[in-house]
């Protein structure tokens, strides 16, 4: 496949995601309602508990990360879920495309939507609670966002794998799995307070390291050595693993007939 064809196929999925997002009211809630409610309720709770500025920043970083990762991850998962819901799965796999087109196209739109959520929440947090996302500086913020979006990509692709494997029975994982990952990554607390085995699991989540690195800019000591390098390395490994698992799930679906079951 030529580079041009690669880009066009990726753009096809990105444009499809954009069109679908722009025509569904539900996406408005995903983009604005739930994230804003989340930041407001957590921010107000920090006031009620009389938390100091560093602690408030610590918790709000987690809250904003939660919404940003969720929105981006859902967009990746929708790449497969749209076809499951509309029973049109077979048509795209009849075309000479690869998994990379599907996941990259939807991830790019997810990144855009995640970025939009992040900006909205950053503005809200700045004016409502005095939390400044730019205190970490441009590079610090950029790597944090990159970490969020890479984690979302990995989780989204694993959700796609589960849906390809189990069909609609696995669609709840689109909403459940990201929350599990975020709880492990320590959105509202340092992972050092987690029980031993759970802390070990937390250490396997890339976002744990990106949160850790970002929070150092707000006066918290790093819990891990080389958090950015570790986070990026883990993300690369999981991205490869998740894509391999999705390819394997599609191949299995071609053997078992699952691909046809998910089509009209």
């Amino acid at each position: 496949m030529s580079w041009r064809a690669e880009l066009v196929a990726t753009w096809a999925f990105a444009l499809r995601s954009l069109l679908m997002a722009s025509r569904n009211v539900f996406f408005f809630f995903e983009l604005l309602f739930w994230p804003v409610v989340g930041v407001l309720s957590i921010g107000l709770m920090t006031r009620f508990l009389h938390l100091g500025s560093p602690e408030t920043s610590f918790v709000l970083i987690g809250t904003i990360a939660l919404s940003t990762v969720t929105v981006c991850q859902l967009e990746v998962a929708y790449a497969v879920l749209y076809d499951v819901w509309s029973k049109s799965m077979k048509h795209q796999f009849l075309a000479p495309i690869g998994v990379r087109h599907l996941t990259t196209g939807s991830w790019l739109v997810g990144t855009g939507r995640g970025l939009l959520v992040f900006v909205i929440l950053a503005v809200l947090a700045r004016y409502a609670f005095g939390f400044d996302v730019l205190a970490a500086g441009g590079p610090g913020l950029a790597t944090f966002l990159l970490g969020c979006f890479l984690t979302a990509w990995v989780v989204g692709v694993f959700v796609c794998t589960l849906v390809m494997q189990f069909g609609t029975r696995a669609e709840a994982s689109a909403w459940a799995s990201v929350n599990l990952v975020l709880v492990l990554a320590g959105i509202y607390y340092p992972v050092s307070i987690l029980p031993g085995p759970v802390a070990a699991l937390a250490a396997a989540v890339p976002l744990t390291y990106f949160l850790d690195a970002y929070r150092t800019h707000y006066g918290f000591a790093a819990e891990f050595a080389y958090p950015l390098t570790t986070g990026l390395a883990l993300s690369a490994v999981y991205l490869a693993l998740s894509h391999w698992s999705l390819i394997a799930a599609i191949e299995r679906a071609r053997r078992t007939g699952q691909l046809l079951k998910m089509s009209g």
Partner: protein
Amino acid sequence: MSAIDARDVTKTFRAGWIRRRETRALRGVTLQVPRGAIFGLLGPNGAGKTTLLSILATLLVPDQGSVTVLGHDVVRDAAAVRRRLNMASGNASFLWSLRAEEIIAFYARLYGLSGRRLARRVDDLVELCELSEYRRVLYNELSTGLKQRLALAKSLVNDPELLFLDEPTLGLDPDISVRMRQRIAALRRERGMTIVLTTHYMREAEELCDKIAFIKGGRILAAGTAAELKRQIGIGDVIALRLDPAAVPWLAEAPGVLRCVESDGRVECTVDDAEKRLPELLRALHAEGIVVRDVQVTEPDLEEVFVELAR
């Protein structure tokens, strides 16, 4: 060279973790489809038609056997095959919030079309499938007939050499079915496309297909042209004669006559091939001095072949 060459293809579906259930969908199917032909796959529900079509279209992997499509092995060289074929289903389904033209464009992009080429292809297909009026209508607002037309338009985005049509006229009104069949015939005539279609409708198969395979229980029971199938099944043509005198005892023994029945002063002879036997019979009757007052020839339709084979 065949467009499709499938040999001894088997496929079994397995389900259940504890109580394993097995469904043998295909049991050694062998099939050749010549290039440029319209080939019909006929059979009752659950016969294995869609399974076979899906294997040929690389959507399913066969358990055993070999399948070559347009010179490529469908398992080892699936990507090359996919570039050159496409498929439309009778009960097609696409994303509910996309407009008709956006659906065509989305699938066209998956084949690398962009810019002016993409716009031109979408326009052409919208026109070809008479969707101009509906190109900006959302998919879930289209009628069944329009959805079928959209499915056909989508299946032509890559100008395929081989087109699979799975029940293309399913659920359509008769007048729309007729136009759909005309469109399918035109695709072969104008673009030289090889078309494989599954159908329940005998008239559709008889009207469109050069060759037909009848599949049941995962096996191909008979294959050939409509005429060949009728002969293979042996249900024969019927020659109805009004004779004077009415009773001719030796008719039932004449060469090629399978049986004779007398009713209402007419003799109905079932023969293996009316075109060949009618002149012979008329000559023999004339030689015996028997007056033939009326002759009617009826060929059995494919429906009868279907009923016979489906038993």
